[in-house]
């Protein structure tokens, strides 16, 4: 779905960080969504580092990223769901507006694969559809613990009515009921598959699910790795009285 971006009233004239070689918003751009995997050491990159890395990889591949409107235009690129540092992923969703009337999507994946650093693997690309909301994600958490300990932990977790895990940050101190967002972890060999929902009032982090499981385990539970298997989305509800714009 090619989307034409409206011409701005006047040229943006920002200061500070902005990147002038991304194209002016007056140009035509195509909104593209591509999926990628983040493996090996690349999982230690932060969300912002990943966005910056993808922008540079797109530029090396010869694409120009469109800029947003406003006084401080930014490249139009987003990752559907922020990923915790250290969490690998097999299903990252990146939406980006690329300058041009059309792009060969298979070619984009090939070219991007050649310019991404190791551990960042583009999988497929498609034209972005209507905007969606992220409703949750599924994770595979591998433990370095005896199978019996893990099984007991999962059983106790599922039997609990609530599992409060404290969340401490400079801005907030509160207890999160992890079980509310991730009610049914499934045992899968030495791992646990867990779907974590995102509600209007928030969500739980995979690391908090790990802490909740550990609190249910009879012995120590050590984590060997966390991988995001899927990001779940649903159509974004259209608010009455407003108009969707692209």
């Amino acid at each position, binding site marked *: 779905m090619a989307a034409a971006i409206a011409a701005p009233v006047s040229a943006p004239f920002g200061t500070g960080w902005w*990147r002038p070689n991304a194209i002016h918003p007056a140009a035509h751009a195509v909104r593209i969504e591509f999926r990628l995997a983040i493996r090996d050491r*690349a999982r*230690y990159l932060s969300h912002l580092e990943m*966005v910056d*890395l993808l*922008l540079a990889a797109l530029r090396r591949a010869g694409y120009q990223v469109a800029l947003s409107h406003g006084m401080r235009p930014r490249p139009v690129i987003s990752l559907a769901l922020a990923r915790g540092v250290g969490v690998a992923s097999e299903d990252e969703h990146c939406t980006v507006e690329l300058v041009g009337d059309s792009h060969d999507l298979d070619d984009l994946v090939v070219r991007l694969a050649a310019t991404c*650093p190791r551990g960042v693997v583009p999988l497929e690309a498609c034209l972005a559809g209507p905007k969606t909301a992220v409703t949750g994600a599924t994770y595979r958490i591998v433990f370095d613990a005896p199978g019996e300990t893990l099984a007991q932990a999962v059983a106790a977790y599922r039997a609990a009515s609530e599992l409060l895990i404290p969340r401490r940050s400079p801005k907030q101190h509160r207890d999160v009921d992890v079980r509310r967002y991730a009610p049914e972890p499934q045992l899968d060999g030495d791992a646990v598959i867990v779907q974590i929902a995102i509600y209007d009032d928030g969500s739980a982090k995979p690391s908090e699910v790990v802490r909740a499981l550990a609190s249910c385990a009879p012995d120590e539970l050590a984590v060997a790795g966390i991988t995001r298997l899927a990001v779940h989305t649903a159509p974004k509800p259209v608010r009455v009285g407003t108009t969707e714009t692209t």
Partner: protein
Amino acid sequence: MTQLILQQQIELQQQIERLLTVVEKPSRYIGGETNETVKPDATVRVALSYPDAYEIGISNQALQILYGLINDRTEAAAERVYCPWPDMADAMRLQQVPLFTLETWRPVRDVDLFGITLQAELTYSNVLELIDLAGIPIRSEDRTDRDPIVLAGGPSASNPMPLAHFIDAFFMGEAEEGLSSIIEILDTVKGREERLDRLAELPFLYIPARGERPVERAVFANFSIDTAPTKPVVPYASAIFSRASVEVMRGCTRGCRFCHAGTWYRPVRERPVEDVVKAGLEQLNCTGYDELSLTSLATSDWSGVARAVTEIKAAKPELHLSLPSNRVDTGPVALAVAANSRQRSITLAPEAATQRMRDIICKTITDEMIEKAIKSAFAAGYTSLKLYFMIGLPMETFAEVQGIVDLGFKAREIGRRQFGEGGKFTVHVSASNFVPKPHTPFQWDGMAAPEQLRVKQEYLRRTLKGRQLKLSLHDVRTSMLEGAIGRGDAITGDVLEAAWRAGARFDAWTEHHREDAWQAAFTAAGRDLEVEATRERDPLDPLPWDHVRSGVTKEFLLDEWWQSRAERPTGDCRWDGCSDCGACVGPVRNRLVEA
């Protein structure tokens, strides 16, 4: 045996992965950036290190040049290592994880050559931190065949004595040509002592264990005809500089008497415009950067700058092209506008605010030139003007400090005439503390006393304030430390070791600077930090770095020192005739390109 090594490597990698889950910014340690090189079968392995955090070290152009040079032009493999942040260093010690290279996560101790660049004295405690984390004995004399040769280079190596206990070999000068000789020796000679014996034959290497013989600074005479690097490693987002950069010129002969680089990198060698444009555009394609910087000690002095700006902007009109290190003049302001019409900030460095002091330091600009440059900067639409000065210079009186205040207000007045009384613009005055450097005409001068510097800083704080004005000052404590180490001797090395053992590291970072550790270390060595920093040296006395021949003669430096006392500037040899500094020998001489 191979199986055992493989097993050890896997175990080390697992240990590192465990640490990465608990430390701040793990991306500092993962490597894997675009344009990194891995050569698993190389016979000679080199670890190149910058003794500071990843985001500082990865932005260093010199290390990027050497990394590309070793990997692309020799059979050796160069890998990178930066100083682990204290949280990581503590965790590594606790878990007994040795310092590792980013590319292969293999122990630094296993390489043949551990190269450390010395860009600033305040990183010296991190040099010891790196060596210790690698599991290498701190002192050279305690090392065995099991340890790599620890080599240091970079501008601060010009006084090697404070680090002479800890470094096996110092590279004096520019490493582009001499590095291959070192790698060849490492490839063909085995055994630590044998290697050091052979390395001692190279004229540009100072090997402390082989005595204080004269060492000649290496000059890369072919800089002008050598191709500029085009594939630098692209850092992750946290780096302080995230842009392509081409070195357009090496050396500067303006002769500012406080400037170490102005002596150490003589003579001037310029790169042809065609090569710069080609390398710049190639680098943009290879890196994905959207900004290109044309770097040198004074880019606006490069003969090809106007043509290069025109050609690069013609090829990439939207590119953010930056020209750092401009002289104070209207020409460079116009150039900066042409290079990047959207940038709103410009930096001018008068260094001193009065004509008298500019004559003393040999900064050959006038009040009229500065005023014109400020006017043209505001007229061109710049809304943030940065003015750099130094305080504590030799022969400074309070009139010089008042001059900084006056010039700050004058700049604001010019800005107000341009943008209106309440206009949105800023005059940012930065005043750093003068620190005398070896191999400069001011090497015999002492720093101003700390209380003097604080009084001057307080005066600036009290007077230079108001709307549209900003002031930034440097920490006096760290400046004094820089001064005390920079002109230090072998005993300073003992002080350094004691301070590091007491917890000093990351001294350039105020949150980590340990004044108590340094004061105690100086006292234990029977010295006083402030006395060492402020002490004047007698021109007749030998200096700790006298055996290092920079090319510029001591007679010339002394003559320049006398000229400064007479408040007389010296002309630039590019335009005003040879000043007989001694830097031009044989094929090594100024090489300018046609504009």
